[in-house]
């Protein structure tokens, strides 16, 4: 069985300050991990993906995430927040049992203050 826990339901930062969105996962397999972003009234868009290559994964819009197996974590970071980063962020783990289903975390709402 697999699961993913996003530790913060809501994060608020000031524009220009660093962003940290936390995610812990549980998987019986070597997982694939993803971060998706959902802007208001929009579908989801892939930010980045980890698939057992480099543990530090760079994504779009300046985001990156580090896979830490010992901590079962896959936290999302960005050095400097922009107003346009305000959105809902989902950490996702892949089911590698042949079903190709993704399990989504409960989401973290990022608010960026001017």
């Amino acid at each position, binding site marked *: 069985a697999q699961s993913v826990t996003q530790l913060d339901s809501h994060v608020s930062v000031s524009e220009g300050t660093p962003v940290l969105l936390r995610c812990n996962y549980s998987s019986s397999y070597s997982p694939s991990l993803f971060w998706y972003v959902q802007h208001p009234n929009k579908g989801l868009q*892939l930010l980045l993906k980890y698939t057992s290559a480099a543990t530090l994964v760079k994504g779009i819009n300046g985001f990156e995430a580090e896979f830490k197996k010992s901590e079962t974590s896959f936290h999302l970071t960005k050095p400097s927040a922009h107003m346009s980063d305000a959105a*809902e962020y989902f950490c996702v783990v892949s089911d590698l049992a042949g079903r190709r289903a993704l399990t989504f975390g409960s989401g973290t709402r990022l608010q960026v203050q001017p």
Partner: protein
Amino acid sequence: DTAVSQTPKYLVTQMGNDKSIKCEQNLGHDTMYWYKQDSKKFLKIMFSYNNKELIINETVPNRFSPKSPDKAHLNLHINSLELGDSAVYFCASTRGTNEKLFFGSGTQLSVL
């Protein structure tokens, strides 16, 4: 050009009615999904089709019936709508074992 398109964007209906949501992708993907997002933003998979064949069917009431007339389409029909069906429904697609999902913009269903 829209990659994954769903219609309608908004759907307001009465309890007990039957409604359908349509989804089409022009990406040439062979796998399509329906996800349900509840009021707390939690996303849960409902169905997945690969080459028109059902491969994932989560514990969804049998009032929900997906139909895939071809690889590019996956429609969702819902019978006897209930208040608890109110949610945003997302269609998504992917190619083969590439797990990058492309999502539609969602259909907000409100059952009154």
